[in-house]
């Protein structure tokens, strides 16, 4: 690890809607190093999905990049043309989406759809690549791969469909895999298997993985570093093991204490609700719900500060301004 595969620098992505401007990603910076698994956690309205779209070059109007860069191997992918993006997507950056039912075409066999990835990047008709697809299926632990390449999506279980999507993502041995809620539609036991698979893939290849999810507990099982997003902002970023032992940001603390299910005790809840991104609260976006908020919090936005490798955006931690 060390070398940076992806660098997000002060990214701002807003949506222009009739009801107002939604500040979905508002000045977010983070980096992804080679061979690391970095998790991005957040609830709905945190901006994590928009961030995923930005990283994979899939932003479409009414989303617009207001400022910032996304450097992939040094090149700002936000400034690339659609053609150039297409050469990177699938080849250098693989994407795994949430719901395999929406992302697999029901009228083509699973093998054909994976072969299309090869066709897109190497030319020649998809059918020629069936052997490679079988090899891929074996890699992602799909049982009986020679038969399964001819199976239609509806003939496969949820877990298997997701493995097909994963095989599509790793087909061209990309440098970076972006997984947007890859297991949210799956059962918990299948989820666990898919997580193990992704960990194995990271071990065997040199890929970095960005995993975006609302399931924070899942990330702590598999990620090296974890980033926490709230209302379009990055509030904390650090090593998973450090974060879980010693969360610094009040929001992280609150989330972790909710997940520490205690027997027959009231669940710690965070009062209030997730703010609107059209009119976010002034100052720190979390301050209306924060038990430690003081006067500064409602006036000045805290900047992310580096504390021994941990990035935190909170007036209570380290300096600000």
């Amino acid at each position, binding site marked *: 690890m060390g070398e940076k595969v992806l660098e997000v620098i002060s990214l701002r992505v807003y949506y222009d809607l009739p009801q107002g401007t939604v500040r979905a990603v508002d000045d977010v910076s983070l980096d992804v190093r080679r061979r690391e698994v970095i998790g991005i956690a957040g609830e709905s309205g945190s901006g994590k999905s928009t961030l995923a779209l930005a990283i994979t070059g899939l932003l479409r109007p009414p989303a617009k990049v207001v400022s910032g860069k996304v450097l992939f191997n040094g090149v700002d992918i936000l400034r690339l043309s659609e053609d150039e993006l297409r050469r990177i997507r699938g080849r250098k950056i693989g994407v795994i989406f949430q719901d395999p039912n929406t992302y697999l075409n029901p009228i083509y066999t699973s093998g054909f759809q994976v072969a299309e990835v090869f066709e897109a990047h190497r030319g020649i008709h998809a059918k020629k690549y069936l052997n490679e697809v079988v090899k891929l299926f074996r890699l992602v632990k799909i049982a009986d791969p020679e038969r399964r390449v001819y199976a239609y999506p509806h003939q496969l279980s949820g877990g298997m469909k997701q493995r097909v999507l994963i095989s599509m993502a790793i087909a061209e041995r990309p440098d970076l895999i972006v997984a947007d809620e890859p297991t949210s539609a799956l059962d918990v036991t299948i989820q666990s298997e898919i997580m193990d698979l992704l960990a194995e893939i990271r071990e065997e290849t040199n890929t970095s993985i960005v995993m975006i999810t*609302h399931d924070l507990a899942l990330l702590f099982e598999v990620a090296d570093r974890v980033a926490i997003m709230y209302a379009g902002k990055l509030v904390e970023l650090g090593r998973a093991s450090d974060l879980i032992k010693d969360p610094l940001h009040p929001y992280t603390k*609150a989330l972790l204490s909710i997940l520490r299910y*205690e027997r027959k005790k009231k669940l710690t809840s965070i009062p209030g609700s997730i703010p609107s991104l059209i009119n976010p609260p002034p100052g720190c976006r979390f301050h209306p719900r924060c038990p430690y908020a003081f006067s500064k919090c409602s006036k000045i936005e805290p900047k992310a500060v580096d504390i021994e490798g941990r990035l935190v955006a909170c007036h209570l931690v380290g300096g600000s301004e």
Partner: protein
Amino acid sequence: MSSVLNAINLRKYFRITTGLLGGRKYVRAVDGVTLDLREGEVLALVGESGSGKSTLGRILVGLQRPDEGEVLYRGINIYSSGNSVSKKLRHRIQAVFQNPDSSLNPRMQIYDILKEAVLTRNPSLSDREVIEEIIKLLRSVGLVEDHIFKYPHELSGGEKQRIAIARALAVAPEVLIADEVVSALDISVRAQVMNVLMDVKEKYKLSMVFITHDMGLVWSISDRVAVMYLGKLVELGPTEEIFKEPLHPYTKMLLVSSPAAASATASKDLRFKARGEPPSPINPPKGCKFITRCPIAGSECSITEPELMEISRDRMVSCLKVLKI
């Protein structure tokens, strides 16, 4: 402790028609389930997709007539009169469902939704009394009266679920079936709604069947756990015992796979890491249905199907390997 609900040997099969000439194939959604809900307890009903827990929930609440078996409410068969539950018993068992967007009629204001439920219990109330009752219900789920004139699409997921709970309470039930009520909500909202649910359970002295796949929630609120796999009950017992010492291989697999349960379980037996695929519900394998994924399956497991048997006081398992001990 007496039983409020008694489910006896419930079976519900759904017919799948395959093509023009295809024979009749059945999905055994609920395949011989017997359990009881004790007064004042929270019974967690756990399982993944295809386990039949939601179908079982609907049978228990009176929405789905079983093909075989009975559901007794304090000894009375709830399905005795025709296809639906008898009027007298109808309000005793209520339910709250998973999807907040589907729980409330989009064309009705909260006022209408709650008024309908309130008047069902007591048709002779005046407008003023109805409003008082509605305000009381909203308060008990932590909402303010401003919500009365809103339409469902103006509310957040957590608020909608709380209204759904309020509506269930309006008819003064004794039993509440909560089917994945927080699964569609954000983590922070989940906590709020769970707390409301538990408050309400205490205040109104309810007995609750809590259907979920989240083992963390099971640890947090349940007294007993019933684990389902492919339509059958595989383990049943007090929560603390099951978490400390799970017996059925599937229960162990669930606990190992759930990151949320990490804080509660003893050590993780990694032999039971999730593997294999659940079998087809239409063509299940012979013998024990868990055989395709079980790390300790023996030859006898593919021949005989295990029965749910009592292994110690108040604990039941259905596994040949475990029961042999």
